[in-house]
């Protein structure tokens, strides 16, 4: 399975854009021997995982097994935790993003993230969405910005609920609405890679379906990694699944194969609900 890139992409360190016809081969992100520890406590043990472009990779595993920690490696969010040390290589577009030369700010503008707990800014709904486009100068005019905000909210399935109250604070929304607000905020900057940490944990079935639809739509152009505790969701939206346990990668493969015919005993026990 080989994917080619048609859109031009900047490399991370410099603005040299790649030739449009030049092919980038599968996978989009290649993680090699990732170890993460918080102080003395190691949370991730030697994980190597390829993440393909234009598809959804689901990370599953019992609580505390290191899914969020691993996800945060992919946009260097672990930098913000003082005690956290990450080693290993994460190759994205031919560059190791753990390289000290890489500017994490630039990296994060291309790798969007939706957090496990909704964390809207203490600003209005509109400003929450407009924040990213503003700091990255994506909108030329006010109309552009309005349009971006509306589009992002529509895609996250929130527009109908908030279109009359765009200036009320983001914190005034319900938990599920906040979660969709954060999704809308993340996609507003049009990242190329989107990391989602349990994006549907507070959503009702209708909103969940809307988000899964969105994920499916985003998949056509972007690379998506999603952490989920719902086996059904993993089976529905993802093409590949990786099963984590106690900080180790137990098994990874095509989602169909993992769910119908897992190679490892532990994987089978987990997806059939025998532990975890």
């Amino acid at each position: 399975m080989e994917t080619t890139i048609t859109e031009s992409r900047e490399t991370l360190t410099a603005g040299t854009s790649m030739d449009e016809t030049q092919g980038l081969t599968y996978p989009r992100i290649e993680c090699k021997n990732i170890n993460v520890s918080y102080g003395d406590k190691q949370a991730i043990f030697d994980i190597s995982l390829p993440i393909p472009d234009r598809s959804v990779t689901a990370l599953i595993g019992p609580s505390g097994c290191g899914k969020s920690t691993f996800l945060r490696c992919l946009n260097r969010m672990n930098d913000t935790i003082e005690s956290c040390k990450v080693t290993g290589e994460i190759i994205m577009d031919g560059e190791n993003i753990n390289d000290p030369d890489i500017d994490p700010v630039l990296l994060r503008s291309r790798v969007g993230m939706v957090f496990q707990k909704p964390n809207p800014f203490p600003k209005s709904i509109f400003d929450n969405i407009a924040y990213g486009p503003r700091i990255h100068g994506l909108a030329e005019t006010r109309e552009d910005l309005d349009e971006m905000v509306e589009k992002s909210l529509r895609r996250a399935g929130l527009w109908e609920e908030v279109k009359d109250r765009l200036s009320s604070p983001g914190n005034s929304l319900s938990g599920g609405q906040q979660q969709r607000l954060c999704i809308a905020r993340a996609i507003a900057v049009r990242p190329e890679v989107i990391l989602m940490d349990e994006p549907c944990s507070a959503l009702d079935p209708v909103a969940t379906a809307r988000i899964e639809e969105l994920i499916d739509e985003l998949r056509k152009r972007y690379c998506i990694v999603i952490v989920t505790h719902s086996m059904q969701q993993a089976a529905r939206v993802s093409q590949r699944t990786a099963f984590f346990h106690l900080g180790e990668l137990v098994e990874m493969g095509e989602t169909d194969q993992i769910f119908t015919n897992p190679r490892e005993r532990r994987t089978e026990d987990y997806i059939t609900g025998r532990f975890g």
Partner: protein
Amino acid sequence: MVQQLGHLPMGWLLLALLAMLASGGFFVGRVQAERFNGAAGSVRVHSRPNYHGYYVAMWTFVPALVVALAYAMLGDGIVRSLLAGELPANFQNMPSVELDVYLDSIARAAFDHGYGGADRVFSAIANRFLELQGMVKASAIALALASAACGFFLARRKVAPGFRARNRVEGGIELFLFLCAAIAIATTVGIVASLLYESLRFFSEIPFWDFLFGTRWNAQTSAEFGALPLFYGTFMIALIAMLIAAPVGLFAAIYLSEYAGPTVRAWVKPVLEVLAGIPTVVYGFFALLVVAPAIRAVAVWINMTLMSAGITAEPLLAAQPTSALAAGLVMGIMVIPFVSSLSDDVINAVPQTLRDAAYAMGATKSETVKHVVLPAALPGIIASLLLAVSRAIGETMIVVMAAGQRARISPDPTADLTTITVQIVSLLTGETEFDSPKTLSAFALGLVLFVITLFFNLIALRVVQKYREKYD
């Protein structure tokens, strides 16, 4: 015999008595409760034995404590008034101050185990004093024991399986805590009431509006009580102080909470707090001896330059040896830690998830601080600034030493000004009689000061509360 009692060390005795009563009551209550606890079987016991013990101890201890406190407060007075009543007629006509001095010497002589001097009358009175004291002491102890016994028996009668001893003890604790809080409140109310009372006396002589809006203050020599120049000086100096403290304190807080590594923080934070621990009088002489002369020198230099350049004919700046600027600058340094420490706390209280959200959008550190952290912490920061302002307004030592005594309204920061606090100090030090308008005006000034700082503190409190609601 009664005289011997007069030498009883009442403090220790009462303490020991109280401790014994409390522990005795506790054990009796507990043992009694344990008995029915063991025997009860079918009956459900409401409270654990310990609570019955506490309950009995409470009722034994508290009445005795009340008696002991009453003795501590009134005992001496009772002895003295009894003695004074028995004194021969020539003493009865003495002025009360002299009588007090005489009784003091009697008490001292009695305390030194008898008087060996020649004055027979004096030694007779001293002995009588001891006798009376012995009687009062003995009756205080008897009363304490009796009241403790009453409480003890009443409480013991209640100990029963169904008795809700735990709830009663909880109620007792609540009452005790309430009394402690009430003491603090009562003190405040008392102070405010006395301020109000004396101020009203002042305003009965000087019209309120003349005081508040008059522009001439000359309380020491002539009776001019227009306090506007004092308010002006106070606010001018507080303003200068805040111009220093607000940005420096805030930026220091941002640096400490957002940028500094753990080692830097471990060093800088305590140092900043040391700044808050320096006695204000030290700041005061620093202002007077170092800062004020420097400011004066600069002001003189500016005057010279301007005049030699022909821009002004007269000296532009007052260039006084004490100045609003000197006091304000040093006061600004003094309140920096008040701003930085509280702001640091509120910035740290901004949830990390908010910062994460901004970083994950590709925001830089300073963008995150500017757009997310500061707006989220703004109410707390405002509160810290308001507290610093009320601190600056009430500050006394620095301005007494470095601001000057002249009451005037001048925009020139190198001129000397005076403040509310400085005037209160100079009105109440030295010779004063208590009911001249001059001293009473100090109370009026104090009242104004109190109202201003109360106002700032209340706003700060409201703002902080709002902020809490947002994140809890």
